[in-house]
C-alpha cells in the first residue's frame, strides 16, 4: 500500500473510530472513577497475584524505563550513525512514524506521555498455576486517557470486524465498579485507572477484587521472601520470578532441570548452574539499566553445604571455593577465571555424563595418557594442577607487511602446578611429543613444520615452537602467527598460542581480587566462583581487522553481493563500537547462587534535552 493510500485509509478509520467510540466501548469507557477506599496504589503488584502463580514479571516504572532508553547515550549515539539515519529515511520507517503520529493525534499525547500516563503506575504480568493462563495488570495515572485509549482501541477492533463482514468479536459487561470487554479466550477490564486483562476470566475477576481491597489479608506473591528480598535491593527496571517447583511439577522445560548435560565442555562451564536449577524452588531475574551499564542478574536457591559430591569439582569441598584473580595482558580481549578442580571433574565423569560420553572420555584418557608416559590423565596429570583455571585472550600485533586473511587472537591457559619440579618436566615432554604429531600432520598437508626450541631456566623451562623458515616458502603462506609455547616458571604453568603472550604472562600481575564483599544480611561472604571479562571495544577492533571475513560470511549466508554485504557489516561494526565491556560473574553464598551479567556502554557524554 502506498503512503497516500495508507494515509487516506487512516483518515477514514479516524472518522469511523470517532463515530463508534461513543456507541461501542462507551459504557466501559464511561465507567465510574475508582471507587473510594478501595486500594492503596503503593501496594506491590506482586501482592495482587495469587500465591500459586507460576511466574511473575514486573516493570514498576515503565515511564522511567522509557525515559532512560530515550535519553540513553548509547541509543543516541546509535541514532547518530549514518546507517541508522539512512534507515530512518526508509519508506517503512516513515510509514511507521506516520502511524505513530496518527495514534498520538487520536489520543492527544506523545507516545512518551502515553506511556507515562497509561502505565506510570507499573505493568505486571503473571502466569497462572496451570502454566498456561496469563494475566496483566497495568496501573495508569490518567483515568480519562485510559478510558479514551480503550474506547479507541475497541472501536478499531469493531471497525476491522465490520470491514471483514463480521460481528464485533467481544461483548461488554458491567461488573460492580468495572467494565469488561469479553473476547473469546480473553477478557479486558477497566476499573478506575487500572487495566486488567487475562486469558482466564476468573483470574481477571479475582484481580479486580484484589484491586478493590478484597482479601487484603492475603499477601499473594508478595509473601515470597525471595521476591521481597529483590524488592529491597533497589528498584530494577524489570524484575521477574518463577516458581521452579511448580514448573517442574507441570513438566515444563524438563531438560533444564535434569541436572546434567552430556557435554563435558558445557558441564565445565555451567555444571554449577545446573546443580542449582535441579533443586532450587525458585528463580529470580533483575534487569537494571543506567547510562553506563545494562545488568541482568539471575538468582536461585543453593545451599553450599548441600552441593552434591560430583559437583565438588565446581564449588570446592565446602561449596565456597573462590576463583583465582583474573589475568591481564597488554591487548587483553577476554579474561576468564574460574575455580574448577579439573581432576575431580574428570574423575566424576561416570556421575556427570551418559554412557556414550563416558566411553569417549575413556578413549581420550588412554590416548592422552600415552603423551604423559602412561600417567593416569585424570588422577595424575590433571591432579598435578591446583584447582582453578585462568584463560586469557589477547589481540595479536602483526609485523609490518604481514596481512593474514583472518586475524586470530592469541590465547593462553594459565595454571599452577602442585609439584613443579616433577610435573613441569612431564608437561615439557608431552608438549614436545604433541608438536611432533603436529609436524607430521603439517608435512602430510605440504605445510611448513614447527621448529621446537627448549630452554631450561632456573625455575623451570620454556618450549617455543616457531614456523621453520624456508627459503622457497611463498610470501603469502598462511601461518596465523602461531608459535605454540609451554612455559613453566616456579609453580606457574602457561600454555599459549604464541611465544609473545607466554612471555607476557610469566610475570603478569593479577588484575585484582574478585571475591564479593561481605554479605549485606548474613555477614557470611559470598564468593565469585567464575568471572569472565570481555573488552568489547577491543573485540570491535578485532572484528574490524577481520572485516573481509565477516563480509564473506554475510555474502554466503544472506546471498548478498559484495557491496550489500559490505554495507551490512559496516553497520554491525558501528553498533559494536557502542559497547565498552562485558562481564559475567557466578557468585555463591548466603543460600543462593547468582549469575550476574553486565554490559558496559562506551562512555561518551551526550547532552540530555534538559541540560543535565
Amino acid at each position, binding site marked *: 500500500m502506498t503512503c497516500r493510500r495508507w494515509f487516506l485509509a487512516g483518515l477514514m478509520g479516524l472518522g469511523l473510530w470517532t463515530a463508534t467510540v461513543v456507541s461501542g466501548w462507551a459504557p466501559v469507557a464511561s465507567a465510574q472513577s475508582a471507587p473510594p477506599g478501595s486500594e492503596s496504589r503503593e501496594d506491590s503488584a506482586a501482592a495482587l497475584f495469587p500465591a500459586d502463580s507460576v511466574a511473575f514479571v514486573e516493570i514498576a516504572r515503565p515511564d522511567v524505563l522509557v525515559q532512560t532508553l530515550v535519553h540513553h547515550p548509547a541509543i543516541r549515539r546509535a541514532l547518530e550513525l549514518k546507517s541508522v539515519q539512512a534507515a530512518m529515511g526508509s519508506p517503512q520507517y516513515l510509514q511507521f512514524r506516520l502511524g505513530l503520529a496518527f495514534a498520538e493525534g487520536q489520543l492527544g499525547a506523545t507516545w512518551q506521555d502515553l506511556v507515562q500516563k497509561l502505565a506510570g503506575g507499573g505493568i505486571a504480568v503473571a502466569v497462572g498455576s496451570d502454566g498456561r493462563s496469563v494475566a496483566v495488570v497495568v496501573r495508569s495515572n490518567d483515568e480519562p486517557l485510559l478510558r479514551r485509549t480503550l474506547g479507541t482501541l475497541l472501536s478499531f477492533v469493531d471497525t476491522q470486524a465490520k470491514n471483514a463482514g463480521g460481528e464485533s468479536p467481544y461483548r461488554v459487561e458491567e461488573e460492580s465498579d468495572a467494565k469488561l470487554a469479553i473476547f473469546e479466550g480473553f477478557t479486558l477490564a477497566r476499573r478506575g485507572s487500572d487495566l486488567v486483562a487475562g486469558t482466564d476470566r476468573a483470574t481477571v475477576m479475582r484481580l479486580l477484587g484484589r484491586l478493590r481491597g478484597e482479601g487484603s489479608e492475603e499477601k499473594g506473591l508478595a509473601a515470597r521472601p525471595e521476591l521481597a528480598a529483590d524488592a529491597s535491593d533497589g528498584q530494577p527496571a524489570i524484575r521477574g520470578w518463577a516458581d521452579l517447583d511448580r514448573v517442574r511439577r507441570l513438566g515444563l522445560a524438563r531438560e533444564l532441570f535434569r541436572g546434567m548435560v552430556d557435554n563435558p565442555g558445557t558441564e565445565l562451564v555451567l555444571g554449577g548452574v545446573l546443580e542449582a536449577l535441579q533443586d532450587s524452588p525458585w528463580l529470580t531475574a533483575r534487569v537494571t539499566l543506567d547510562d553506563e551499564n545494562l545488568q541482568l542478574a539471575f538468582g536461585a536457591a543453593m545451599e553450599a553445604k548441600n552441593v552434591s559430591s560430583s559437583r565438588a569439582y565446581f564449588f570446592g569441598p565446602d561449596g565456597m571455593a573462590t576463583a583465582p584473580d583474573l589475568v591481564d595482558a597488554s591487548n587483553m580481549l577476554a579474561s576468564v577465571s574460574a575455580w574448577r578442580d579439573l581432576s575431580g571433574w574428570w574423575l566424576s565423569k561416570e556421575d556427570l555424563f551418559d554412557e556414550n560420553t563416558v566411553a569417549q572420555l575413556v578413549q581420550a584418557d588412554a590416548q592422552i595418557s600415552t603423551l604423559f608416559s602412561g600417567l593416569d590423565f585424570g588422577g595424575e596429570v590433571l591432579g598435578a594442577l591446583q584447582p582453578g583455571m585462568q584463560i586469557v585472550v589477547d589481540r595479536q600485533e602483526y609485523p609490518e607487511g604481514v596481512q593474514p586473511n583472518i586475524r586470530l587472537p592469541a590465547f593462553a591457559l594459565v595454571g599452577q602446578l602442585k609439584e613443579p619440579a616433577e610435573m613441569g618436566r612431564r608437561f615439557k615432554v608431552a608438549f614436545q611429543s604433541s608438536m611432533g604429531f603436529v609436524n607430521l600432520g603439517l608435512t602430510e598437508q*605440504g605445510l611448513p613444520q614447527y621448529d621446537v626450541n627448549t630452554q631450561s631456566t632456573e625455575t623451570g623451562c620454556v618450549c617455543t615452537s616457531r614456523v621453520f623458515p624456508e627459503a*622457497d616458502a*611463498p610470501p603469502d603462506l598462511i601461518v596465523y602467527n602461531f608459535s605454540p609455547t609451554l612455559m613453566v616458571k616456579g609453580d606457574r604453568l602457561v600454555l599459549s598460542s604464541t611465544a609473545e603472550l607466554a612471555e607476557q604472562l610469566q610475570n603478569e600481575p593479577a588484575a585484582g581480587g574478585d571475591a564479593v564483599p561481605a554479605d549485606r544480611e548474613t555477614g557470611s561472604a559470598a564468593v565469585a566462583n567464575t568471572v569472565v571479562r570481555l573488552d568489547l571495544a577491543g573485540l570491535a577492533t578485532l572484528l574490524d581487522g577481520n572485516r573481509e571475513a565477516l563480509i*564473506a560470511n554475510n*555474502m*554466503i*549466508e*544472506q*546471498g548478498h553481493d*559484495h557491496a550489500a554485504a559490505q554495507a551490512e557489516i559496516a553497520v554491525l561494526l558501528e553498533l559494536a563500537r557502542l559497547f565498552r565491556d562485558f562481564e559475567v560473574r557466578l557468585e555463591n553464598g548466603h543460600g543462593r547462587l547468582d549469575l550476574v551479567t553486565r554490559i558496559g556502554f562506551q562512555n561518551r557524554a551526550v547532552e540530555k534535552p534538559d541540560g543535565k
Partner: protein
Amino acid sequence: MNRFRHSRAGRRSTVSSGPDRWDGLDPATAWEPWSPADGDVWDLAKVAHLHRRAGFGTTWKQLAADAARTPAEVVRGLLDAATTTGPAEDDSVADVIAAGSEARRLASWWLLRMVRGSSAVRERLTLFWHGHFATSAAKVEQTRLMLAQYRTLRELGQGEFGALARAISCDPAMLVWLDCRESRKAKPNENFARELMELFCLGLGQYTEQDIRQLARCFTGSEIRYGQFRFNSFQHDRNEKRFLGAAGSYDREQAVDVVVKHPATARFLVHKLVRFHVADDLPADSPLIARLADWYRGEKLHTGKLLERILASRIFFSAEARGARISGPVELAVGLMRNFGLEANMDELASELAAIGQLPLYPPSVAGWEGGTTWINAQTLTGRANLVARLMQASAGRLPGAAGLGEKDDAASLVEGAVGWLLAVRPPAAVMKQLESIAGGTRNRSERLVRLVSALATLPEFHLA
C-alpha cells in the same frame, strides 16, 4: 500476442524421441552460423534458450533487450563478458574463505558467484571443466587447493585445451585426488596416467595398459610443497617411454602434449561440450560430432572459439536442440536465482543441491556427474520441485528479475510470459489452462508469480533446458 514461439509446441516433452532424430541434419551446414529466416525468427524464446545454455539464464529485462539485437551480437557479447576477470573483491573473499573454512563453504561461495557474478558463461564453462577434470574436496580436504584448481579451470578454460591439460597435470588438488604426489620413479602411480587418457582426453578403447604404464613414468617426481607443485628431479624417470605410438624421454608437459595431440582427443572433447551445450543424446559417433571435431583440431583445440561456433550454430537454435537437455541441479537452482534476482543462504542451497545430486567441488567420482537422465528419479524430482518452491517462497515477493513480466496483470499473459521465459518446451494446452487458474486470483502479481513458478516446477517440462 504470443511473444514466444515453440516450434514443436506440446509435441515433445522429454528428450526420449531418440538419437536418430539427428540423422536428418547435414553435418556440412549444421555448425554454420544461424540467422533468422521466414518462419524461424529471433524471438524471446530463442534468446531465453541461448541464455539458458550459454549461462544459467537471465532476467526478463535482459531478455527483451537482447531480442532487439542480432543473434551474433548477443553471442559475442556473452563471450566478451566471459573474458573479463570480474571484481577483485570476489577473489579476496574467496581467499578469506580458503584461509579459514572447509571446502563446502567454498562451494557455497562458488554458487554465489554463479548467481551474482558478471559472467554466467564463464562460470558455467568452469562448471563443465570441473565435471570433466572431476576432483573432490572430500579427499583433497584442503580448501585452498580446491580454490587454486577452480581458478585454473576458470582462467584457462576458454583457451587452448593443451594449456589447460598441462596445468591440470601439475595441479596440487589433482595430484592429491589421483595420488600422483606419491609417484616415484621406482614405483610410478598409474592413476593420473589412466584418467588422462580415459576420462580427460581420449576415451575408452584408444589406449592399452602398456600405454598407461609408460605414460605414468612421465609423471614421476611430482610433489606438493606449501600447497604448490614441486618437481623432484631425483624421483623422476628420465629414461625413454613408448606410448600411443610415440617414443622419447618425455617429461610431464611433453607427455601431456602427446596425449592432447592424439586424433581422438578433439572428438572426445567436442562430444562432451556438445552434450553440455546442445543435447544430452547426440551420439559420439555422429557425423555432426566428427565434422566439428575436425574444425576444433584445426583451431588448436581452442575452446573459446569452439564455444562461439556451437552457440551461434544452426543446430544450436534448431527445434531438435530445444528441450534436449535435462538441467543439472546447479543449472536449475542458479538459473532460477539469476532469472528472478533471488537471494538465499548459499550454505543451505549447497546442502539442498547435495541432496538432489550435485554439490560443486564434491563430484561423486573421478568421472564427474554423468548428467542427462541420471539427474532425475522419484526422489530428486520431488527435491527439485521443493527447492524451487522454497527459493520462490523465501523471496518474500521480491522478484526484481521479473520486472516487466505480465504487465497486463492478467493470468494468461503472466503464464504465457513465464512459460516462454522459463521453459524450453511448451506444456500441453490443458496444462496451460490449469496454470492460468493458478496464476489468477486476487493476490498481488508477485504472490501469483511465486505460486505459478512453484507449480511450473512440478511439470516435467520445467526440468528440460
